[in-house]
């Protein structure tokens, strides 16, 4: 892999350069918390931040996205909407880089989802490093570092930035806007050191090999855990909506007041919400919160793994962080592991 060294002041030049051709989104502070917003200069960007509440997936799979535009009438007219700008997602953490890799797979699988794929095509991903908080557990699911699936990866090494080249496109952009030089072994080793430090900082971890988790989950269908956490769960869907790999959506129509022009759009949905699996006739296939929690946890550790390969939990801890009743994905998983080991299921 190609590593370059970018002097400290080069970053601002680089971002200015990007801003000429792209919308640039990156982490900024809002009410004291990191969120991804559009930026107009490098000054606004956070170079080291804890995980954002809402994931950067919103730039690839927006909360609300128009799919079709139509005109009603005798002969309705319909056209496909695929509005996508060239964009740079800056400051994407390894967990979210992995999450985007998984979303790429989902939306390309079977019938390709043109809306997502078109946005993705026009997106440049620039990763940055991070340090874990008490909810992060990426180390436990092999997503602590990202080897590829980004265009560039920038790491602050004090005197300047170590820039890992992920794609030709990323390299071309870097070379177009700033002068860099080949990074020295010493500079590269700073990233290795950083990873060592990061690795030692996790307080949350899953007590089993990631590859064993699908099996553990498949054996835990009848665990009492689901009913227990179902009792305290709000069914508010926050865990779904902050998850970087949740991609379920609802499709709705909106029509303007002239009752002629309208659009069909999709919005984020969540399997924890009461009506998610309810059919028009009224039957609800996952009526209890416990069933819905089981479904969500299994989607992360078993169901989607069977379907797409690879765990669908990237260890960002957002769901645990967002849960008001402290349903913690690491604790639940460890509990299931323990139940399996002790064979205890009262």
């Amino acid at each position: 892999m190609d590593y370059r060294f970018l002097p400290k002041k080069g970053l601002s030049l680089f971002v200015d350069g990007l801003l000429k051709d792209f919308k640039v989104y990156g982490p900024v502070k809002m009410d004291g918390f990191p969120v991804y917003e559009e930026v107009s200069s490098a000054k606004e960007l956070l170079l080291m931040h804890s995980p954002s509440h809402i994931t950067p997936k919103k730039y690839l799979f927006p909360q609300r996205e128009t799919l079709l535009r139509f005109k009603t009438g005798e002969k309705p007219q319909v056209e496909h909407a695929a509005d996508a700008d060239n964009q740079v997602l800056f400051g994407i953490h390894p967990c979210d880089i992995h999450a985007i890799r998984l979303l790429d797979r989902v939306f390309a699988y079977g019938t390709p989802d043109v809306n997502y794929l078109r946005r993705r095509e026009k997106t440049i991903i620039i990763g940055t490093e991070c340090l874990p908080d008490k909810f992060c557990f990426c180390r436990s699911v092999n997503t602590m570092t990202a080897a590829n699936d980004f265009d560039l990866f920038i790491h602050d090494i004090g005197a300047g930035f170590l820039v890992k080249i992920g794609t030709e496109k990323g390299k071309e952009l870097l070379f177009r806007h700033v002068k860099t030089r080949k990074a020295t072994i010493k500079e590269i080793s700073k990233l290795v050191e950083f990873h060592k430090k990061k690795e030692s900082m996790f307080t949350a971890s899953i007590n089993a090999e990631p590859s064993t988790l699908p099996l553990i989950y498949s054996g835990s269908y009848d665990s009492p855990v689901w009913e227990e956490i179902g009792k305290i769960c709000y069914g508010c869907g926050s865990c779904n909506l902050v998850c970087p790999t949740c991609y379920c959506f609802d499709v709705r129509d909106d029509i303007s007041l002239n009752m002629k022009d309208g659009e069909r759009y999709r919005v984020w949905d969540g399997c924890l919400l009461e009506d998610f699996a309810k059919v028009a006739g009224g039957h609800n296939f996952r009526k209890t919160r416990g069933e819905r929690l089981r479904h969500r946890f299994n989607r992360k550790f078993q169901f989607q793994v069977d379907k797409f390969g690879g765990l669908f939990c990237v260890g960002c801890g957002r769901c645990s962080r967002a849960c008001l009743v402290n349903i913690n994905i690491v604790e639940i998983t460890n509990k299931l592991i323990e139940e399996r080991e002790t064979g205890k299921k009262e």
Partner: protein
Amino acid sequence: MESPYLLRQARIERITRLTEKERLFRLVFEDDKTLGHVPGQFIMLSIFGAGEAPISVSSPPDTRNEFEICVRVVGSLTNVLHTLLKGSTVGIRGPYGKGFPVKEIENKDILLIAGGIGLVPMRSLIKTILLKRGAYGRITLLYGVKSPEDILFKDELDEWSKVPDFDLRITVDKPHPLWKGHTGVVTRYLPELKIDAERTAAVIVGPPVMYKYVIMGLGEKRIAGHEIFLSLERRMKCGIGKCGHCQINSVYICQEGPVFRLSDIRRLREAI
């Protein structure tokens, strides 16, 4: 790359009122291509401004650019559909999913069990089978409805009952003053059916509550799990395996179903 959400437009050519709540719509595409479906598949039906919903196809495969759907008023979109007049245009995507194994069940006795509007996709299958009557053995249709007023396709049921070797039994849930036929749930009539389990394929379509009991009943008849086919209903928003609503464990109903072989989903928790 074309958007999977784009649709073909179809005109409502005929509307037939079947019951208080159900109407049959004959739809003709604006283009000259067929729908190209197999019995048991579904389409996504659009009314602009009202939305989109999965609807099963009720007619057999057709060489013309037309097909039929039978729709009960149950939700928002179906409500609006029932206010549309002949000549209105609707949007169609699909067909989607896997249908009934029409070819595989050839040369077998066919046991069909339908509950309520389960007869709608079943009709597509029955009509397909009857077009090639000689290729199939005895046909038994057990059809359960709430009350006599709910019986769909009355004329066609009459016709089918006259087909040689076609045993039709309709049962209504509760006794009704105007009903002289069978009463009670469909499972009640399973024991008395003469079935050669070795050469029978069973197909079940009905409301969620029906499956468990019918499957038990068929088990008692010694029909093997791989000879039982059923169509599962779930909420669907995309039809292309993305939106997540129809997911049961690792299975997307819109992709791998709605028709399943019982032996394939027996271990699929939440399926039945």
